[in-house]
């Protein structure tokens, strides 16, 4: 446990030192909300504003996007070299990937919490407690996402490849799930396609919580995310080989 904590602390420090990661977890979501909010401003205005809708969409997107930061922190060339040294010390193998998963989750979720508070203070409706009602879902979703990112690294054994595949898959699922534009408003066929994207399920759960006060959807989504994270960690355990780092 002490070893895991030491690796986790070091990983967290490394993440905080890299400007592009800090940008991705804090400024990038706000910039995306700003851009999409401006684009959608005229489409809403009574039941809710375009900004409210975009803020939810982007925060869900960013929680899933964390997988790309996880792949970077797990197998980036500079990190790989130091990890290789750790592997030759009496440290359990699991500490390596668990440390990365936990550090990336805490790092990203902290950034998203700041974003939720900033957006709430700007007048965007994100639920009770300055958007902190969404905190459990954000944490569990980020945990699931980072676990999948690390698992993909274990499977393809190459960070740039894992990153590129994840980038495409996440963006495709997000577009089909209505993050960038409403697929469901395009008619029955598009709505049927959108129903297959996890982003649709997540957005519905969050909208029902934020706007209709129904917490059941977010609770189910959080529980599902925990299950996915657990399965991904088991997958890491089965596929992570120390020789992949050589």
């Amino acid at each position, binding site marked *: 446990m002490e070893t895991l904590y030491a690796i986790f602390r070091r990983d967290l420090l490394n993440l905080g030192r890299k400007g*592009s990661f800090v940008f991705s977890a804090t400024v*990038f979501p706000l*910039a*995306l909300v700003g*851009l*999409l909010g*401006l*684009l*959608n*401003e*005229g*489409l*809403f*205005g*009574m*039941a*809710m*504003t375009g900004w*409210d*809708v975009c803020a*939810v969409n982007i925060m869900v997107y960013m929680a899933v996007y964390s997988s*790309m930061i996880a792949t*970077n922190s797990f197998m*980036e*060339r500079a990190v790989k070299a130091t990890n290789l040294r750790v592997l030759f010390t009496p440290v359990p193998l699991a500490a390596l990937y668990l440390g990365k998963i936990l550090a990336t989750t805490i790092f990203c979720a902290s950034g998203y919490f700041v974003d939720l508070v900033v957006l709430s203070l700007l007048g965007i*409706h994100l639920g009770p407690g300055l958007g902190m009602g969404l905190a459990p879902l954000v944490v569990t979703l980020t945990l699931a996402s980072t676990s999948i990112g690390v698992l993909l690294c274990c499977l393809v054994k190459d*960070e*740039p*490849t894992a*990153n*590129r*595949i994840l*980038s*495409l*898959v996440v*963006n*495709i699922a997000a*577009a*089909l799930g*209505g993050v*960038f*534009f*409403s*697929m*469901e*408003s*395009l*008619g*029955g*066929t598009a709505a049927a*396609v959108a129903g297959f994207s996890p982003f*649709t399920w997540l*957005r*519905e759960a969050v*909208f*029902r919580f*934020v*706007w*209709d006060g*129904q917490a059941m959807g977010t609770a189910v989504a959080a529980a599902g995310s925990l299950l996915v994270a657990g399965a991904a960690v088991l997958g890491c355990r089965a596929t992570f080989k120390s020789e992949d780092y050589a």
Partner: protein
Amino acid sequence: MSCFSAFFLNLVRRVRAAGGEYAVYGALLIGVAQIALFVALPGEGRLRVAVEGQQASASRLLAGVPSVTVTHPRSAPGRADIALGRLDAVVEVAPDGSAGVTLARSGAVAATVTGLLRGAGEAVQPAPADTAAGTAAIPAGVPATGPVHAAAAPATGPVRGPAPARGPASTLMGIWLMFLLTVGALCGRFAAQDRERRMLGRLSATPATPGFYLAANGIATFLLCFVPALLTVLVEGALRGDGVGLPAAAWVLVLGCTAALAAAFSLLVDTLLPDEDQAVMVAGMATLFTTLLSGSFIAPAAQGRILRAVSTVMPQRAIMELTGRLESGDAAIGAPLGIVAAVIAGFCLAAYLVTVSRLRRGKW
């Protein structure tokens, strides 16, 4: 020229060595195209209104309106249904038979539905032909949130119909464009890889010029993006029998512009940024941002004045215009082609200048 062919053959070998990865990109491109075309099937172009309460009377009022689809939800619809785009308005019918809009996406939608309920409302206007969605003007003085009783809100602008007004080619490119550019940026990171592997120092000691090196990288990236995309639309067009909205030559032009833009952008990002990871991350973010801004997903008509002005110079916007004009048979394609060509030339020139500058400073 022999330097160019040597570079190019080396890139072909590298692509073959990582064949599985490129196969994944190709499969994802084909998958997105299939979904985009599936979505592009004729839509209904209607406002979706949920009616609660004495449903029969409201249904009678709205049944004859061709621009409205009436639904009768089992449970009370919430604001989440509006946010998700499933409903545009909710109408509640009181026991005395009077009907009112209790929830609406925007003031214009509420006013339109109220007018329809009174039997004197204006008809819903379709979205502009070059857009996936039109716009809804918000009447002044309408509160941003809270339940709406729409009687006081006059309709001041066209109301967006929910169905796609684009043809199949424009709908395909609207959804496909971002992924084509992303795939181009992901495939074309050869220069960044070479720099990380410290290959460029060695290359600088050969008679090869930066121009040949960049040209080989650019053409390899272009082909990796262009060939699978073109094959997809040609096969799909043959299967559907309509060419997916455009003849083959027009698709060559549209996809050629897109692939060339992706290759030029990839060259620029690869030469500017210090390593492959940052190149991939920055390329992904920039592609997402600029594509959203260009109106590929969200119609330019829905943008404000400043955003519309910015998006006018976006190459993605020019590609969408080019596609739309070719699809509608408009021969005036010089302006969008010019914008795309200028941007591609600018990216290539910048990549070349950065590389030459590095070479002079001994930092290949």
